[in-house]
């Protein structure tokens, strides 16, 4: 099997690869946003420890 044939997906390349790209984006988004939430909570907690209150509460 050659690669250009594989990428063409029998004429459905845009739809097939679009779907797999959307899935990749959703998976990456979930990991990045979960990590971001942890970071922002930790930042709030450090403010709480320093100033006795969280920054955006």
């Amino acid at each position: 099997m050659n690669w250009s044939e594989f990428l063409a997906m029998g004429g459905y390349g845009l739809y097939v690869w679009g779907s797999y790209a959307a899935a990749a984006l959703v998976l990456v988004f979930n990991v990045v946003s979960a990590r971001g939430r942890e970071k922002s909570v930790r930042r709030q907690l450090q403010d709480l420890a320093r100033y006795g209150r969280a920054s955006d509460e």
Partner: protein
Amino acid sequence: MGHGGGIAHIARLTALFQFLHKYASPRYFYGFAGRLIPWLAGLTALLLGWGLYQGLFVAPPDYQQGESVRIMFIHVPAAWMSMFVYMVLAGAGAVGLIWNLKLAEMTATACAPIGASFTFLALVTGSLWGKPMWGTWWAWDARLTSELILFFLYLGFMALQAAIDDTKRAARAGALLALVGVVNIPIIHFSVQWWNTLHQPASLSAINKIGAPAIHPSLLVPLLVMAVAFTVFFATVLLMRLRAEILHRERYTTWVTELVKP
């Protein structure tokens, strides 16, 4: 039975509460989740690799849909997850309401953005599959519309919780909304049977004329592997979100203060 049975029953209940008290305590669960996450992440990677290989290289093109059938390996697991995560969210919300279990309330909150993202993926890949197969990106039929409503239920849950400052009240209001929204799940599931729709009926439970499953094993294997991969992925990011949620909700406790000491 009688007296002895009653005592045994109480002993069992006590053991259950001791178990819950230990494992469902936010402090214990924070550490437990932290130890579990790397293993779940590794398992997700293995399953995704296997599922992608099966789906893109091993599975043959469909005799009707050609190569576009490969969209199924993303679309169907994403749609299953959109409903499964909602049931976990609503179930956790109910447990939080009934037993006042903090960890369950946090689970419901942590589920919402993940479920919304899977619903979004099901809608987008459905659209990308619908265009070449049906000739349209979107139709207002029962399956598509009820799945869109599910997306708005997730967004509504998140908006409601964000709008209420008091954590306990936010958890209760969210759980009630989630429980009312459960009615949408059987509507999504049965929509392809109850109404005329463009959407094809379920492939997995369908049986063909000779009594064999209507979906060929070469398509079924990647479908199931991807479904398991998505489920383990969900568990991974759920635990990551839960850990952040625990730190937030327990921010005034000594153990959290000690943990994040600057």
